[in-house]
């Protein structure tokens, strides 16, 4: 068990380090063509949107009447974020909203 744990950990660590380090290490030498630069510009928004969509799909936290508490609380976050422009308050509002809505939504 112990040695197979270490072997698995080592294998997983190697691939994780590779996917994290190789692109920034290798690609930062290059001057990208305009198309690739444009594509990379929109990767952050796309990856965060994809993570969020997956989250709402797999953890909707449905209320008894079928409302998704996750989606509703995300709406609260969005509103507070728009008003305050503060990431910290956005996160706090989301967690508070999630707790309150989970309790209040039918």
């Amino acid at each position, binding site marked *: 068990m112990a040695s*197979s*744990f270490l*072997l*698995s*950990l080592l*294998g997983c*660590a*190697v*691939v*994780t*380090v590779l*996917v*994290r*380090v*190789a*692109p*920034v*290490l290798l*690609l*930062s*030498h*290059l001057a990208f063509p305009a*198309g690739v630069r*444009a*594509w*990379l*510009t*929109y*990767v*952050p*928004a*796309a*990856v*965060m*949107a*994809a*993570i*969020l*969509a*997956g*989250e*709402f*799909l797999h*953890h909707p936290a449905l209320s008894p009447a079928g409302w998704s508490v*996750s989606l509703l*609380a*995300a709406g609260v*976050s969005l509103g507070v*974020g728009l008003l305050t422009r*503060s*990431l*910290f308050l*956005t*996160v*706090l509002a*989301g*967690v508070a909203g*999630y*707790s309150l809505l*989970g309790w209040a939504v039918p």
Partner: protein
Amino acid sequence: MSGAVRPPRRLAPDGFRAGVVACLPTVLGYWSIGFAAGGIGTVSGFSPLEVVGLATVLYAGSAQFLFYSLVLAQADTLALVLAVLLVNGRYVLMSAALAPFFRGRGWGEKLAAGLLLTDETFGVAVQRARAGGGLPFPWLLGLNLGAYVNWGVANLTGALLARHLPESMLEALGFSLTAMFVGLLLFTCLESQTRGLELVAIAVAAIVVLALAALAPLPLVLLVATTMGALASALLALRRARGGRRWLRPSC
């Protein structure tokens, strides 16, 4: 721009401490997920030492959850490594997106930036870089080490304590990660020079996830959705640059 209440995002100094401060909004998320990951590790029969080893060496929540469940299912090492590769594949795209900000900088800085890359620190770092602040190394180190230390401590605490806490509390805290991505996405959009195109990327990525979710494992779907979302916006941007119609001007 009414300075007083806003976080000092544009005015932020470049030092290590400012980086640690920039990390603070992510701490709640790290703690809840790290705590849960550590707790599940203990419940799955791993020792606190193994839990902390996994947290500090892998340093990736979803991969840690996967590791525990696959080891419990007695998957062999190769299957485990491939699964972790798939789950962490999105880091290829994030690391590549950071690359343009690291042109002409030392390999040590690139290595440190890549090794400690996570979804959360990536979001915070890109937001700063886009706002014109660049990515000064002490700041990035503060952000990354702040996150790393929190993650390790949260995993250890979870491994030692999780059995004694109510599940509903962990669940509500777990939502902080979702809320954080909502905020990061909002600010990315608000601060972008091309908001319309950011919205296109967001919409396409989300639609692709919803369309493919039933057909393939989520990590793979995330990779495809990210690629296609960014591609859609890039194609529109190129078209515009070549003098196409200007029908996608900012309107967020």
